[in-house]
């Protein structure tokens, strides 16, 4: 039950990110997480939102190019070794982490929620479940 992230193409110049957040704001779309990857000329903005289908429709209608990308969203205890344990599970399952970033809000106290883009979502989820870790669903993200 992976979560869908939206990846959006943006030109790397002043104002482009704000113009995009303006569109989301105009449609009452709530951001749960955001990460930017940039090169000299362009950037890719990755977002997790409360309503991914509404957000994708709004952005496409406004002429943005975006893709839905499955990611794994996992609450991790906020303590030494918390992230390390998850990464060990991925390593043991030969799952490669392409990039990761953190959620803005934590669903419960003393935990951080991390978003992983991996090469094999199914293998990653299986490894986490085998160790009884919680994997957030699209509905849980919407209800946060």
């Amino acid at each position, binding site marked *: 039950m992976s979560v869908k992230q939206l990846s959006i*193409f943006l*030109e790397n110049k002043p104002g482009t990110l704000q113009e995009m957040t303006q569109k989301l704001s105009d449609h009452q779309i709530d951001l749960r997480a955001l990460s930017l990857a940039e*090169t000299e*000329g*362009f950037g890719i903005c990755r977002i997790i939102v409360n309503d991914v289908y509404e957000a994708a429709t709004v952005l496409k209608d406004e*002429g*943005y*190019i975006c893709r839905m990308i499955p990611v794994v969203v996992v609450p991790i205890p906020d303590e030494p070794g918390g992230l390390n344990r998850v990464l060990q599970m991925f390593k043991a399952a030969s799952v490669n982490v392409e990039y990761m970033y953190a959620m803005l809000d934590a669903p419960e106290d003393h935990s951080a929620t991390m978003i992983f883009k991996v090469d094999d979502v199914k293998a990653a989820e299986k490894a986490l479940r085998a160790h009884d870790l919680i994997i957030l669903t699209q509905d849980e993200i919407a209800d946060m």
Partner: protein
Amino acid sequence: MSQYFQKEIECASRNEIENLQNEKLVKQVQHVWDNVPYYRKKMEQKGVKPEDIRSTKDLYKLPFISKADLRESYPYGLLGAPLKDCVRIHSTSGTTGKRVVAFYTQEDLDLWSDCCARALAAAGTTPEDVVQISYGYGLFTGGMGLHGGSEKLGSLTVPTSSGNTERQIMFIQDLKATVLCCTPSYAAYLAETMKGMGLGPEDISLKAGILGAEAWTKEMRDDIEATLGIKAYDIYGLTELSGPGVAYDCSAQDGMHINEDHFIAEIIDPETGEVLPEGSEGELVFTSLDKKAFPLLRYRTRDICSLSTKPCSCGRTFMKMCKPRGRTDDMLIIRGVNVFPSQIETVLMNNGYPANYQLVVDRVNNSDTLDILVEMTPEMFTDNVGEVSRRQKDLVADLKSMLGIKANVKLVAPRTIPRSEGKAVRVIDKRKLLD
């Protein structure tokens, strides 16, 4: 199945065509000598008299007419008929300096309509067809030229002119237009707009496009054919000679047949002016054989292409010209290297990018720079920065090997490069502001 408008001449023997050209050339040279003092003076300066021109073999003796001559003689200096016999003018879009005005007698217009009707017929158009003319009407020759041809052929003619894209699409749908006449860049824009409205080739009845008035590549043709579900036929012409219909694609879609009963084509070395043998690439020069109001002899088009009289599968015997590789004045000289926008378009499309691009040439620290703005497309976008960058680097490498110089590729957001309803503005040369 090839169709003809005037089969007798379109499929005449080479011998007949040459004899007709010889006969018409002698008369036309006399007409110009008698009626156009500006050209007569040029002939006198070169020591040529009408009696020196007995056949097309003597053509090389005549002086050239260049765009500069047209500007110098503006507006009436090259007029070849009394004003009372002239019924219309057209004018060039004037992108490179002063406008050029060309004149037409009623007979000139009739012959021009024949030329356009032949082009439409060669693309399979019949009186059963609904022909939508989305070229601009007015001073530009595109709209009224194809309009005349379509009416002469007897097709239902829809004079939408350019612009108002949604209305264009409405007519294409409601009237079930089967043939579309416009610039290639506007055809691509119509296809893109239709796609945005959720319409595809299966929702329209178009079968053919007569697309011209600007340089376009084979790759762009393939793209337009796929997105509109049509066969795209090239058409060539210049206001100076009449307008579209000087040459046109046939069912073979492999070079444009020149209406040789009205025009003689030559290829010359643009540097020396020397006539080059058939098959050589060089500057295209036209002599108009029938135009009375604006009779240009040996007009230098600045288009770079080659000619061929090899037999064509369509049955036409008229000589073919290849798609012009570019105009000598479209050619950019960047760090001393000749660059044609059409070369860049080919590389872009081979790499999966759209044909909507813009070239920005500038001079930084006394060195020329070339930036190519390319729009990102859903197909070319991935979530992986490395992948998008790698594609960008591949494009830069392919451009380098095609052009011989390095260009910077800037990926821009969709629909940020302005669309044009007529001729696309592909090049912004900031160096001109510096000089």
